[in-house]
């Protein structure tokens, strides 16, 4: 359908629209017009991606500025789905007679996922693929290979690209990741480099948010994107985590022989090859890069000696058998005291190493990754003195006796990573199904949103039933609290919830555990108690395993079992691989069970340090943050069952702590509003009765075509717009009555009052007017 938001015609590829989607799009447009950032929480499964894309593409194509769209998502499946949405949207626009000439939309993922070279893509590890690819495609390899064919192995897929004109490597239109791989196969070109080289010419780029947040990657990949671009972080509840992820782990054992090799192959050469994309400096600040490399590491042998000294120092530090936590300043001070290494040369470590590798024209960079890590670490530790912490953990776990030292260099302040993004791009949209409470994000990430909104879910019938089970049928309270989680009564009660629901619920049931460790221990306990054999009587059983591909196969079988009517149970982990990016809509998930609250491991020193940082700098209490984080993940898990408003599912929260108001209030509004008091403190048998009743009810025929409440036609949209206008006019009139007609700024309605006091009042009145106009959920 086609409708107007203010002066912007929006093409939406469906004939109906959810009210949430409409408000969402309106707010998006306001943000884009104002040129600011926003935080929007949209219920899961109400078509967030399609709304985002259809509004923004309409916006991009309607206004002459032609702003680009950078769409950041979490996982490859989600990237692929977003690309498919975009592709279908463009097909629809074409059907509607819109000419989007030269429109290009591409997705980017790693070499491992894109590579067509059979020699390279048989490698299992992404890092190895990267390094082998670099060997085959680096500019010096190419140069030499072209000058003297056969002397250096080159990648024919990469070479083939040179036969195409810059900016015309691929026809216009939208390509999903699968599409572009197919295209590459047909034409014999490298999909990865096709996308990379097309980056300056595309209108929409969809990739993982690491490509924008991780400074190392961002510099290579996202540099050329213009500042006008619109940035979206979809499923953005993770960006805090993404930003927090510069953790340094190092095992300095194998370093020594590596750089011996480097020394032996040392030769003097000083030409620079700027256009290479192979290694990048992990630091953000522009001014630093302009500076010259300090004299004492300018010569190669000096630099090697310098590195050697630094590594020796690290090794000594890691021999310590107790936990050390210190700030970068104190680390640098100590370093200087012992080894006379200054801060400045340290800063240039990574860059110097890169140029050295380039000079030596080394191949097989994978072998030097440890050295690169050290250099990167040196640069980071010397550059950032605030918001970071160094933690040395000599033992892996509390009870371990064999030292396995890990040196963490952890970022405590997530805003550090995202700050450049906010600075650089004018509109950053942060959106997700679960980012309640909304004010937490701007606080942690330190930015000022223009709009910050959580949309309730409008339903013509209650399509999902959230239930909180606090105790088993034997009235023993259940909880994943550390003290009781391995209590046989609790384990058995968790198990009986699974058995009862497997018996009651048709098709697919997904269960989430708070951690891998807990799942692994409870699964074997359940097996030995005979609980799983009971489950097997009703459904097939699949479990998330450590290996991603193995889990993918299990998922595939799970979906097949749901499709053919056999029914299946999937056991998986909140925050795990499956919980992010895999949807369990319709028959793939008729019930989700959240066993326990997915708290983070509070004994972790890094977490403790971060919590301290948040408390000291943002006045966020530790407990608040932990609960906020845990509830967000719980909501994320249960939200996976819904897609569209005809879909239905049970959401089971099995932990007595969920009944507490402080926990529940941190769930997103669209879930919380449907948890009634009657359903917030149930025993297993009561819950099963309720579930049966709900399933019977929801299976009754229901006319899903009725519009007006949770589904809008074009007329409904126009009606709403007319009402909004009227409200606005009435508000303006009331204000005129109150303050006398304003003549200064003439125009009717809108923001025409300059005086701050009056503006406050204006909003009061507006709210009152809105409340009067029967605005049911918005109170």
């Amino acid at each position: 359908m086609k409708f107007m938001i203010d002066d912007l015609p929006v093409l939406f590829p469906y004939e109906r629209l959810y009210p949430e989607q409409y408000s969402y799009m309106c707010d998006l447009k306001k943000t884009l017009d104002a040129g600011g950032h926003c935080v929007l929480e949209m219920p899961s499964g109400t078509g967030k991606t399609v709304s985002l894309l259809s509004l923004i593409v309409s916006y991009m194509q309607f206004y002459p500025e032609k702003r680009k769209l950078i769409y950041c998502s979490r996982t490859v499946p989600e990237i692929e789905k977003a690309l498919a949405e975009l592709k279908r949207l463009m097909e629809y626009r074409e059907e509607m007679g819109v000419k989007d000439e030269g429109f290009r939309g591409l997705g980017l993922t790693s070499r491992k996922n894109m590579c067509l070279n059979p020699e390279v893509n048989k490698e299992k590890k992404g890092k190895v693929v990267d390094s082998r690819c670099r060997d085959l495609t680096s500019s010096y390899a190419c140069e030499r290979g072209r000058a003297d064919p056969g002397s250096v192995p080159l990648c024919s897929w990469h070479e083939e690209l040179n036969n195409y004109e810059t900016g015309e490597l691929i026809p216009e239109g939208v390509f999903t990741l699968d599409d572009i791989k197919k295209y590459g196969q047909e034409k014999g070109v490298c999909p990865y480099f096709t996308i990379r080289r097309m980056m300056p010419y595309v209108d929409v780029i969809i990739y993982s948010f690491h490509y924008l947040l991780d400074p190392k990657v961002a510099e290579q990949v996202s540099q050329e994107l213009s500042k006008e671009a619109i940035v979206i972080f979809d499923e953005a509840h993770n960006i805090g985590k993404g930003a927090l992820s510069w953790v340094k782990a190092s095992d300095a054992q194998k370093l020594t022989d590596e750089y011996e090799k480097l020394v032996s192959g040392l030769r003097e050469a000083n030409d620079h090859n700027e256009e290479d994309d192979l290694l990048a400096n992990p630091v953000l600040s522009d001014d630093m890069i302009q500076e010259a490399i300090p004299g004492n590491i300018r010569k190669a042998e000096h630099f090697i000696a310098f590195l050697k000294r630094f590594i020796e120092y690290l090794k000594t530090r890691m021999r310590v058998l107790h936990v050390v936590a210190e700030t970068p300043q104190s680390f640098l001070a100590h370093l200087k005291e012992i080894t006379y290494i200054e801060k400045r040369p340290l800063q240039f470590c990574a860059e110097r190493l890169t140029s050295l590798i380039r000079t030596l024209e080394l191949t097989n960079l994978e072998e030097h990754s440890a050295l690169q890590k050290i250099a990167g670490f040196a640069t980071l530790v010397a550059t950032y003195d605030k918001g970071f912490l160094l933690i040395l953990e000599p033992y892996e776990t509390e009870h371990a006796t064999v030292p396995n030292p890990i040196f963490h260099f952890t970022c405590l302040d997530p805003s550090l990573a995202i700050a450049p993004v906010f600075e650089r791009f004018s509109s950053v949209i942060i959106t997700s199904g679960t980012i309640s409470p909304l004010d937490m994000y701007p606080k942690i990430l330190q930015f000022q949103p223009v709009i910050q909104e959580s949309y309730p879910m409008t339903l013509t019938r209650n399509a999902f039933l959230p239930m909180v089970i606090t105790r088993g049928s034997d009235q023993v309270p259940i909880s994943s609290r550390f003290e009781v989680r391995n209590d046989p009564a609790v384990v058995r009660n968790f198990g009986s919830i699974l058995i009862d629901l497997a018996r009651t619920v048709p098709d697919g049931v997904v269960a989430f555990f708070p951690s891998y460790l807990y799942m692994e221990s409870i699964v074997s306990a359940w097996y030995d108690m005979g609980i799983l054999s009971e489950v097997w009587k009703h459904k097939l059983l699949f479990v998330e395993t450590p290996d991603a591909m193995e889990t993918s196969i299990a998922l595939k079988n799970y979906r097949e079992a749901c499709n053919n009517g056999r029914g299946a149970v999937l056991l998986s982990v909140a925050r795990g691989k499956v919980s992010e990016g895999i949807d369990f809509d319709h028959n793939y998930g008729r019930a989700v069970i959240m066993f326990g609250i997915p708290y983070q491991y509070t004994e972790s020193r890094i977490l403790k340090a971060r919590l301290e940082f948040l408390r000291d700098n943002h006045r966020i209490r530790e407990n608040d943050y932990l609960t906020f984080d845990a509830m967000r993940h719980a909501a994320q898990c249960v939200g996976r069952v819904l897609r569209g408003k005809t879909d239905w599912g049970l959401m089971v929260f099995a932990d007595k702590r969920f009944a507490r108001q402080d926990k529940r209030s941190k769930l997103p509004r669209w879930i919380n509003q449907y948890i009634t008091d009657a359903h917030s403190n149930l025993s297993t048998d009561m819950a099963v009765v309720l579930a049966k009743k709900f399933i019977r009810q929801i299976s009754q025929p229901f006319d899903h075509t009725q519009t007006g409440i949770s589904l809008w036609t074009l007329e409904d949209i126009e009606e709403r717009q007319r009402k909004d206008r009227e409200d606005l006019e009435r508000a303006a009139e009331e204000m005129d009555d109150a303050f006398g007609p304003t003549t200064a700024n003439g125009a009717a309605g809108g923001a025409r009052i300059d005086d701050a006091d009056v503006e406050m009042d204006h909003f009061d009145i507006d709210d009152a007017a809105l409340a009067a106009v029967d605005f049911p959920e918005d109170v």
Partner: protein
Amino acid sequence: MSEARKFDATFKKVPGVLSLTETHVAWVPTAGGMDRQQQALNRVSNMLASKAGSARTSLMLKFKDDVPAGGLLFTFTAASKEADRQAVQDVLIPFVAANRGAPAAAPTPAAPSAVAGPSTGAGPSGIASAVGTPAGSAPGTPGTPSSVARAGKRKLDDGDAEARRRANNLRVRVLRKNPTLMLLHRELVIGKQISEEEFWDGREALLKAEELAYEQRPGRPSRLLDDRFDIAGNKSKSGKIQGGTGVGLKKVETGPIVLNITKDLTREIFEEFPVVQDAYAKNVPRISETDFWTRYFTSTLWERHRASVRKTALDEGSRRKDDIFDAYLEDPDWETAPRKKMPDNVETYLDLAATEEDHGENLVIRDVTMQAGKERSSLPLMRRFNDHSEKLLQAGKKKDATGRSTIPMVADDLYDQIEYEDLRAAAAPAPIPLEVQDANERDDADGARGILPGRNDDELLAMADIESRKIADWSADFTSVCLANPAHPSYPPAADDMEAAATFSTFSFQRDAQMVAGRVVRDMHVASNAEDAVLPPLPNAILEQMRSCHNAATEFLRQYWSAILPAAPGALGAGTQAHSPQVRAARATKMARYLEGTEGKVNAIVTTAEIARVDPDRVRAAMAPTLGAVSVALRREKLRTGVKA
């Protein structure tokens, strides 16, 4: 009827003669003083013979539903008693087999005459042969009903016979499930009114559904093999398996555990662990089976296979080195990466590995609890779960490959993954009428739709308005319609008082008229009550005749119309020879001829009713719709043939 075979046998110690016909087994006492025993052969459900060489040669016959209770025990007395018994057994075997295979169902199955073919016997013989022919009976076994029935027939080639037999079994099953259909079948087919094939024509869907339902087999049990053998199995009355496999285990209180290895258990073990099968194939003739399994269950290999974290029942000491099984030992599959080779690609929207590789160098170290695979001992278990579930899933699919795919696989298109169906402006879904057993009731309820069809709401509303206003405005004005009683003192009026006389006569006329009207109303009321009154039920015999006549007519009508009307596209059985225009035309003519007889039949029933002193009008009224339908068809037929002529 072929002649009966007779054997000397005692029953309850009374000497007599046991005779076997094609359909019945009967025992007649030689001296009387005891009741005759006769049972249909197709009711024999089991027979038990005394051991060969024992003092008495006896045969116990059990019948369906255990009637007569306890069965019949015959003891053969003739010199050739062993041979006698063998002969009886030979005859009975197929019936017993058939009755064991078939679920307890309706007692008298009607049989399709196609198998019995031009069987010499009447209906019952055909039934017996059709039902009693078991799947495995070797053709040519002397004395079995099937061979008797087949004897007179031309020799069919085996494949054809097999197909026919299967079709017949199917039809029998359908008939058993639908008593009404069976009744109709008996009247029409066995009553030789229409042929078997004609009867089933147009009922392919029924057969198909039955075939599908019958072919469904229970799949593999989904439980996972483990060592929780059901120790309490003997005690628990339900015999339900809790937890483990629970296959045949006996435990002597203090002694060693005794396992009863059943075929099922071995098959399960072999399926679950192919290495055991391998070992079995290599070793078993060499060492005894008992030895093999004992060694297996005490081996370290079994310990691994259990993949349980729990401590084994066998303590470490009792486990010894085993040269067979230790060769198959390998490290448990508990590394993070599975030992099994994984395929490289899955659908992108399920590809978790792609995400892991998407972020380049992963620098995040997750805390201990979130590192998958830390609890190594449970990894092999989790892998086994996934494998087992996958195997079960595949087992279900294999059957489809040989037969036909029962469930169409959902094509997982990428667009399907992102589709929001409810955002499409879909048309209101068409209601699917439930399959109601008695379709007539539903039709009755249907009736005309809405009030005064053909008028729109406004008109209806206006009409209602007018009427309601009429009622609201109505006021009783009795004086205008009713004359006052001229209670004149001079009553009766004087002859000369003309005016008074006129008034009086008008009044009396009115009074009389009122009285008459009242009487009429009363009579009508009584009459109408009488109409609604429950009439005495029709005698059963007549009702039976009516029903039969109606059923037959309905079937003929069905046949007629299906021959006349174009077949629905995609209907089962369309395009076969039975549907060529000539065949159809012939059938239509034939059916029309049958239909012409309907009126005569109805008249016959009416006559019977008159004789039985039942109101013939009631019969006529009851049969009127049938006759109406028949006359419609006949009119149509006249037109058709008329046009052709």
